[in-house]
């Protein structure tokens, strides 16, 4: 079916729109100046991209039209063999994608600090740990008291997530301490500032009620901050 050119508008209101709906539509069309910050964000995003070009002119279409190739069996086998050979050479020779210098290996699954030395970050752990080489680690205890998460339903599992374990919700389970009536775990961290949260039953993310609030995470949830001091190792 031939594609109709899009109408500039078919303004005869042949669908018989009720007046109240037309007024409502006018109400909905109000207002809204452009947000300069949002415009700037779009422009920042597009400036790094490849500049768009007008689509290929019609003269190229002949070259891209589908063709049928007829090959003898021997020629086809030879072509297939040569393609496999080229592919094998290419596959083994590839260095792979953009060789981005890893800023940090973001947290192994067991929650301990990372000892690999990233190219651009200080040694001894996550780059936003205090600089120092090698950074001594300090044992930091994380506690979530039971009354703080009361909402009528019992919690059967709590895990710790944060900068130090790649925000992996399964990496650092906490244990229930019946005497203290709290969920607890300890993590060894170099001095620095860390953002973290608790995940309840794999679904609910809660900030630590006893800790400073982190800035808004940008994703609609709240996190907490712990600062591990270099001299004493105290966490605040």
């Amino acid at each position, binding site marked *: 079916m031939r594609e109709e050119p899009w109408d500039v508008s078919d303004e005869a209101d042949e669908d018989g729109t009720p007046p109240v709906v037309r007024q409502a539509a006018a109400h909905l*069309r109000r207002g809204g100046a452009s947000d300069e910050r949002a415009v700037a964000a*779009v422009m920042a995003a597009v400036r790094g991209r490849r500049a*768009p070009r007008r689509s290929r002119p019609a003269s190229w279409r002949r070259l891209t039209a589908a063709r049928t190739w007829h090959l003898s069996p021997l020629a086809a086998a030879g072509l297939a063999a040569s393609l496999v050979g080229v592919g094998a050479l290419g596959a083994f020779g590839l260095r792979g994608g953009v060789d981005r210098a890893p800023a940090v290996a973001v947290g192994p699954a067991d929650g301990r600090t990372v000892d690999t030395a990233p190219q651009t970050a200080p040694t001894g752990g996550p780059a936003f740990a205090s600089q120092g080489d090698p950074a001594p680690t300090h044992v930091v205890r994380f506690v979530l008291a039971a009354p703080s998460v009361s909402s009528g339903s019992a919690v059967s599992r709590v895990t710790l997530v944060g900068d130090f374990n790649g925000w992996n919700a399964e990496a650092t389970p906490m244990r229930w301490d019946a005497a203290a009536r709290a969920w607890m775990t300890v993590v060894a961290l170099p001095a620095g500032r860390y953002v973290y949260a608790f995940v309840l039953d794999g679904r609910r993310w809660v900030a630590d009620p006893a800790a400073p609030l982190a800035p808004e995470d940008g994703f609609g949830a709240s996190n907490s901050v712990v600062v591990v001091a270099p001299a004493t190792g105290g966490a605040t």
Partner: protein
Amino acid sequence: MSDAHGHAALTDANVVERVLGGDTDAYAVLVSRYHARCLRYAERILRNRADAEDAVQETFIRAYDALGRYEERSRFTAWLFRILVNQCRAAAARRGRRERWVLTDEAAVLGAPAEGSTDGYGAAVPLDRVEQAVAELEPLLREAFLLRHVEGLGYNEMRGVTGAGLSALKMRVKRACDALRGKLEGVYDA
């Protein structure tokens, strides 16, 4: 966006040609012209400010990449809204998958900030009656109504934007209008 390059008097098609000619900054004219309108549409479709902002940003980035395929015979509005409608549909589908994450009610936690959560997942937004009525429409009816009566697209444009047939679109618009009339009778009585 400032008019330092004298772009304000240019048509959309003129601006597109400038961008394709290498004047990347000219794209800001199109973004400034359409951002608020796109955001308005996306917010009403997605009912979530953050998701709407993301969808609109993604729309403009994809539009930039695809600018070489824009042809002047169609309105830039409709061309842009085709991308926006798809982005909103994709965002809605992603949200459906994401809603298994239940984020805590901070008021239940000692030391939570008084202001509560931001406009992240599922935050309630106060609405006037008209907005509320539109929000209560079924998604496809809402989409059709907004495109037709708020964004002013013609039915043939809407076909290109939504991929739906002409009669289906007209039916959706009619059902949306009938539903809104029922909800809004008396709203505008003096």
